[in-house]
């Protein structure tokens, strides 16, 4: 009996592993397809502009809210800590490193994973369930070129200005809080920020934009394409897209930072 149970468990594990590898293979082919259709961008220019508005202009409020709140919190908490060491004048430097290199782009990535990723997953999932994606294929249109590539290009383009906005607004919020909460002169704050910024800070920040754009768009779109089983299936695929892309954003954030810090002076 225990032997049968072990064998059944092993069979199930092997089956799940096979399914996982098949999905990974499909995802790889899907991603390659999305990139190889980029030359068709001229044909899908309007779709690109629509998606650019959705992931760019319409995402500004959520990016502002997240970056301002994290900049403000950092200024308060780090300022309190530095005060114990009599080093409040270093507040600008410490918050700028945190906001620029890590928290600005990371929070933006997570927010866009929730906002842009969920929209992609739900919209494409609903199209899959209602056979609209099959209809595209049946009438001779490549659904990856029409639906995924413009989303990918829009994210690749728009994540750069959104990263800049997240960094800028986070730092401005930190500057304001340092003045009004910790009573640090703005000149002292900004003097500890600007002269000490290095190219490494900006590379760490802006290198994350395209990485997050690729992760969020491809993972959420792929999950939308995999949606099965009615409206509940759309919900499941959307959630899976957000969870997986958010996890990958966190992992990618760590590795991009590590790569830049280890390879740039």
């Amino acid at each position, binding site marked *: 009996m225990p032997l049968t149970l072990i064998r059944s468990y092993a069979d199930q594990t092997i089956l799940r592993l096979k399914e996982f590898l098949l999905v990974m293979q499909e995802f790889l082919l899907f991603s390659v397809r999305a990139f190889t259709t980029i030359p068709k961008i001229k044909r899908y220019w309007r779709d690109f502009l629509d998606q650019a508005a959705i992931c760019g202009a319409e995402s500004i409020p959520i990016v502002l809210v997240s970056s301002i709140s994290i900049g403000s919190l950092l200024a308060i908490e780090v300022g309190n800590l530095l005060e114990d060491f009599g080093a409040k004048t270093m507040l600008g430097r410490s918050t700028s490193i945190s906001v620029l290199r890590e928290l600005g782009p990371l929070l933006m990535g997570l927010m866009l994973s929730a906002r842009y990723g969920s929209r992609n997953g739900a919209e494409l999932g609903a199209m899959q369930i209602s*056979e*609209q994606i*099959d*209809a595209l*294929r049946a*009438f*001779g249109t490549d659904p990856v070129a029409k639906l995924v590539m413009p989303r990918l290009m829009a994210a690749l383009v728009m994540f750069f200005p959104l990263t800049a906005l997240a960094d800028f607004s986070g730092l401005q919020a930190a500057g304001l809080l340092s003045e009004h909460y910790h009573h640090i002169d703005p000149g002292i704050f900004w003097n500890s920020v600007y002269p000490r910024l290095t190219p490494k800070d900006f590379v760490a920040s802006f290198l994350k934009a395209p990485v997050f754009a690729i992760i969020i768009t491809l993972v959420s779109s792929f999950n939308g394409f995999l949606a099965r089983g009615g409206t509940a299936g759309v919900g499941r695929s959307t959630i899976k897209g957000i969870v997986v892309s958010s996890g990958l954003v966190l992992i990618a954030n760590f590795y991009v930072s590590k790569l830049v810090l280890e390879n740039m002076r």
Partner: protein
Amino acid sequence: MIELRNVTLKYGEKLVLDKVSLAVQDNTIKAVLGPSGVGKSTILKLMLGLIKPNSGQVFVDGLDITSMKEADLYPIRRKMGIVFQGNALFDSMTISQNLSFFLRENLRLPEDEIGRRVAEQIRFAGLEGYEDQLPESLSGGMRKRVAIGRALIFNPKMILFDEPTAGLDPVSSKKILNLIASLKKSNDLGAAFVTHIIDDVFAIADHVAVLYQGKIIFDGETEKLHESDHPFIRSILSDKILEL
């Protein structure tokens, strides 16, 4: 002509089609009759190359499309039109945009030619005055007629219908069946439709294939269905209920 030859298809461990062979001739109406969930829609998707069989072959006009690449399949698919069960109209587009979308996508036609073809399908579907409406504002029968118009937009040789009357009221169902029958006469088109409604088969089909437990248990002229002594066919002919 579309032909499935010894096609076997599995979804995971479940055997959906077991060595199925059937053909749809040009300029005839062929029905595939079977209970819900037996794999009838799958047959249409195989005919279009939207899914690949585990074994067997699919031929379109004598050309084996079984292992063709997606990009090579696009021109072949345009020889056929398909009307999906839920119509699969693009819900963010108006009726005329739904009809013109694939023309703009796939053919380099001048705008006046696109407008002419769209107007032709609007007239055919009897939807004059609804050109700028979204699909959600139309009735089920009207949406079906738009989907048929879209399927005809490339002037195909064959049109495939997935449960053409499912969810429609009796009057709309009759209109849709008459429309399908008229396509053969006026446009010289072949048609294949899958259904679980036996009355639809007798109303318009020249030939019928009966799919049961993954196998074709009858394939022949519709009138000859009465001569079959298969227990399942006898039961559906007497009860006219396929939900087994």
